[in-house]
């Protein structure tokens, strides 16, 4: 304990006394601050001596820690002292950052956003406090464990909960800065512009909340049904092209947003191929039916059915074959077995898939943006409230709260109601036996529903590729490379020049995703490690808060980030850093789940053996757990990389001229009606991501084989 605390004490004092406390003008890594340590380049020590005496405050934490280390007679007293001084120092640091020279300001001061010095100082104080906690016997007395818990809690608090409070504050703010209150919130929140039900009663259109809700229910019902049909075919029939079905499950991961919407426009839009065909053959009128509820629903069905499929494969396979065999030996026929045994056992899983579909649908931003027309949903309304002609942040905040209420309710229902009802029939025992085959009626229903749908999906993807090579879809089908050249032209003259319009955002996207991926995987796996392997007070709350960001729609996070990080103390908008951070916390739940799954398969006594042999938790993680988790780590890396590339909803609020992302570039093209270059770009992204995934699969595949022959004979 003592060594760790001394280390952080030294680090903290260096951070406070030497590093630039605030954001430096020219960036930290150019080290301009080394030669000019005045103004915003000053360290806290410099600024405190000069004009900002309140920067002495955090030092009290270090003084307390030093006194505890030097004077405490018992370990316990030292631990208490460290905890108290670390916490106090942190509170003082945060207090001065939030209250001096900011919007909540107690008094005016020129405080820029905090920088490297403040970050290092705050981390050091945090770790001094957590080291103290470990000395109190928490986390089995392991400073690494308590430090990790502290770090993740702090990160989630700053980058998930802190921004969300800004939405709340904005929504409850009274006009003219007269404080907070319900008097203006309630009428706006319950106004008919949000909750109108005109489309049901027949008096016009519905409010976005009602639209989102109805759309969510329809999409969730549809995707769950389709997903079940696919899952039944996949696990309960001898259908030959199962591998092809499996490909379907990869598609939504690598599909940039808008792609499905664009493909649907190419088919069913006013100038779409199928619309043209029916107009020519039957003289049907060309309508704009696609733009509205039907189109969005269709696009979401195509986008999210594979996700339901993936979830339900697990559910359907989870029904133990021995249950079905038992049923059959009791003289039930196939239909009765399905009706009375398999289906009831799947019901919680189906409810789960339904709720996931609901969350995905109402959080979806890309499809409604492209196909919504006059059909307003919450996610797009939030966007327009921020970037539209009449910017209304308060309305955006209120809409965000509405959306958040929906997703959180579904998330809570999924965790506390469905989660508890799960009949886990997958046991550790080798469950031999075969799943019962489907009865013929059910089997043919599944075939008839799912296979045309799979075919339709394939056609859409083929069209994307095809559409990117023709001049102007629907009007001029001459073959051309024009779109690719506009986006991705390379000129080789006096060196290589990337002159295409898309290169800039393409490289930015790849760079930022590549930086975010390992960090996401690290945070996700570290969280998983704590959840699976460690016991500490408040673990349930910890787990809940780390999984919560799954239920926060990207648009809401985007709005929250621009509201929270646009001014000091944490000023990040316009930087690449904010994009990296948003990816980390948006995609973290995926890493957590992957990590939990992989770590649960590693015998816990392996870690305990390492600990008993005198290794600390950090060494154990590095030498025992990580080497055995290779495939899971690679999977988490790939997935967070790919998700970062395809993410749009949060990103669209946070991009800047310097840091434009591929998806927001595509949005721009779509809004201008330049479909050709948009789908050309989308195709390039798909190929890029496929390459990454396949490369990773090859690596993982080999790793798994090698591990199997080593571990199996245990």
């Amino acid at each position, binding site marked *: 304990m003592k060594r760790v605390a001394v280390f952080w004490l030294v680090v903290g004092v260096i951070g406070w006394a030497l590093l630039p406390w605030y954001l430096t003008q020219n960036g930290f890594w150019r080290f301009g601050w080394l030669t000019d340590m005045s103004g915003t380049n000053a360290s806290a020590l410099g600024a405190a001596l000069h004009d900002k005496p309140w920067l002495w405050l955090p030092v009290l934490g270090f003084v307390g820690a030093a006194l505890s280390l030097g004077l405490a007679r018992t370990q316990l007293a030292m631990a208490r002292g460290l905890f108290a001084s670390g916490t106090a120092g942190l509170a003082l640091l945060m207090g001065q950052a939030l209250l001096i020279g900011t919007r909540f300001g107690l008094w005016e001061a020129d405080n820029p956003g905090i920088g490297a010095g403040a970050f290092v100082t705050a981390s050091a104080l945090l770790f001094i406090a957590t080291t103290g906690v470990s000395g109190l016997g928490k986390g089995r007395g*392991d400073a690494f464990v308590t430090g990790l818990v502290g770090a993740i809690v702090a990160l989630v608090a700053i980058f998930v909960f802190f921004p969300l409070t800004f939405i709340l504050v904005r929504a409850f703010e009274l006009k003219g800065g007269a404080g907070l209150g319900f008097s203006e919130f309630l009428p706006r929140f319950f106004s008919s512009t949000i909750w109108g039900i005109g489309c049901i009663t027949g008096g016009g259109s519905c409010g976005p909340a009602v639209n989102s809700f109805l759309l969510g229910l329809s999409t969730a019902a549809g995707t769950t049904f389709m997903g079940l049909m696919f899952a039944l075919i996949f696990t309960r029939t001898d259908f030959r092209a199962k591998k092809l079905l499996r490909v379907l499950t990869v598609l939504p991961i690598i599909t940039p947003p808008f792609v499905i919407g664009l493909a649907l426009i190419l088919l069913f839009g006013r100038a779409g191929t199928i619309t043209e065909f029916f107009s020519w053959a039957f003289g049907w009128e060309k309508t704009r039916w696609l733009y509205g509820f039907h189109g969005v629903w269709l696009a979401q069905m195509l986008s999210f059915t594979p996700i339901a499929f993936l979830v339900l494969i697990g559910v359907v396979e989870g029904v133990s074959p021995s249950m079905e065999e038992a049923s059959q030996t009791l003289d039930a026929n196939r239909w009765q077995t399905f009706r009375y045994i398999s289906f009831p056992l799947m019901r919680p899983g189906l409810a789960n898939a339904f709720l996931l579909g609901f969350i995905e649908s109402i959080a979806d931003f890309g499809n409604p943006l492209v196909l919504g027309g006059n059909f307003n949903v919450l996610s797009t309304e939030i966007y327009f409230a921020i970037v539209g002609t009449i910017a209304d942040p308060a309305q955006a905040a209120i809409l965000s709260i509405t959306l958040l209420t929906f997703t959180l309710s579904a998330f809570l229902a999924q965790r506390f109601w469905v989660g508890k009802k799960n009949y886990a029939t997958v046991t550790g025992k080798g469950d031999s036996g075969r799943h019962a085959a489907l009865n013929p009626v059910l089997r043919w229903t599944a075939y008839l529903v799912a296979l045309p749908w799979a075919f339709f999906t394939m056609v859409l993807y083929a069209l994307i590729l095809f559409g990117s090579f023709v001049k102007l879809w629907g009007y001029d089908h001459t073959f051309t490379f024009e779109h690719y050249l506009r986006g991705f032209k390379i000129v080789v003259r006096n060196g290589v020049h990337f002159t295409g319009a898309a290169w800039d955002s393409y490289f930015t996207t790849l760079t930022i995703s590549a930086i975010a991926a390992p960090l996401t995987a690290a945070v996700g796996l570290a969280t998983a490690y704590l959840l699976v392997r460690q016991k500490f007070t408040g673990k349930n709350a910890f787990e809940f808060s780390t999984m919560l960001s799954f239920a926060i729609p990207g648009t809401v996070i985007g709005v929250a980030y621009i509201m929270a990080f646009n001014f000091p103390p944490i000023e990040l908008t316009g930087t690449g850093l904010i994009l990296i951070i948003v990816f980390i916390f948006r995609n973290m739940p995926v890493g957590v789940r992957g990590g939990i799954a992989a770590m649960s398969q590693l015998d816990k006594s*392996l870690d*305990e*053996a*390492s600990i*008993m042999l005198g*290794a*600390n938790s950090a060494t154990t993680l590095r030498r025992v757990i990580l080497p*055995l988790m290779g495939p899971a780590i690679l999977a988490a890396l790939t997935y967070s990389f790919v998700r970062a590339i395809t993410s749009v909803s949060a990103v669209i609020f946070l991009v800047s001229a310097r840091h434009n992302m591929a998806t927001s570039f595509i949005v721009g093209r779509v809004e201008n009606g330049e479909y050709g270059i948009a789908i050309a770009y989308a195709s390039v992204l798909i190929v890029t991501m496929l390459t990454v995934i396949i490369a990773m699969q090859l690596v993982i595949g080999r790793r798994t084989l090698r591990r199997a022959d080593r571990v199996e004979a245990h």
Partner: protein
Amino acid sequence: MTKGSVRFEGVTKHFDDVVALKPLDLDIAPGTLVTLLGPSGCGKTTTLRLVAGLESPTSGRIFIGDEDVTHLSATYRKVSMVFQSYALFPHMTVAENVGYGLTVKRVSKSELRPRVEEGLAMVGLEGFGDRLPSELSGGQQQRVAVARAIVLEPEVLLLDEPLSNLDAKLRRHVREEIREIQQRLNLTAIYVTHDQEEAMAVSDRIIVMKNAEIAQEGAPADLYERPNSAFIADFIGDANLLPVEVARSGETVDIVFDGRRLTLPTAFSTTGQANLVLRPHQLRLSHEASADSLPAEVSYAAYLGNQVQYTLDTALGEIFAVTVPDATPFRKGDTVHVGFDPVAARIVSI
């Protein structure tokens, strides 16, 4: 207090609402092998993990040697453990496994190698260093786990059901080896098992636990010959428990059972309802009645080669008896008379 002793002072452990350990005082002398024995869920593994530092006590204090280790992380305790599943690191060779503890303690390479070889030699696995654990048999893996634990020269060696993954024949052999190494190195060892025969075979002292507390502790012979409760009598070796009335207690006791009064040369402190403990192999079966015998009917007979097992119905309940096979075994339905040796009989409270 000396190096290698283990002491608990009023240690308790709660998992949320579940009491895993009621206040426990424990004192384990250096150089002894003590077994924690009991049915599953009795708190024996929790006790072991508290010594290891893998759990923190809810209250109370733990000492190893003279040092208070209550809040000391497992990493820094001079304690090694052999796990039920062996927990050999599958991605390291046998030598890397055995040397792991030395490596993380930054022992120099030149010192590492001889100590690993010495450890492997101790368990008879010279020359196996370059293999992977998966290339060894179960018994060999077990020995690697022991070697890995002892090369660190711990003050206390913990063994968590170390034999439960081995087949029955190998078990006897390995447990003798463990006992032999423990005595040679004069290690303090705490051994957890639910197998009473295993406990009797290896221990200096046995601590029987039940419902999160100690039921009885003592040398193996004490527990078998002087059980203090019906639970111990039944758990350590098979026992028939017959309800009797204790008419007079003291250095010898008078009991009344089946309407007869008998004097037994065993001490008991109270009078009233109690249990008479009769070991199955101490019972005599014959065709003729005697003064202290009970009439019974054979309800089940099983011939096992080296012994014959009988289940007998008597007026006092069912009795299980074991005899050596003879020329005229009893058959199902036969009437027999069950007699016992008053010297071997014990009385325990209900």
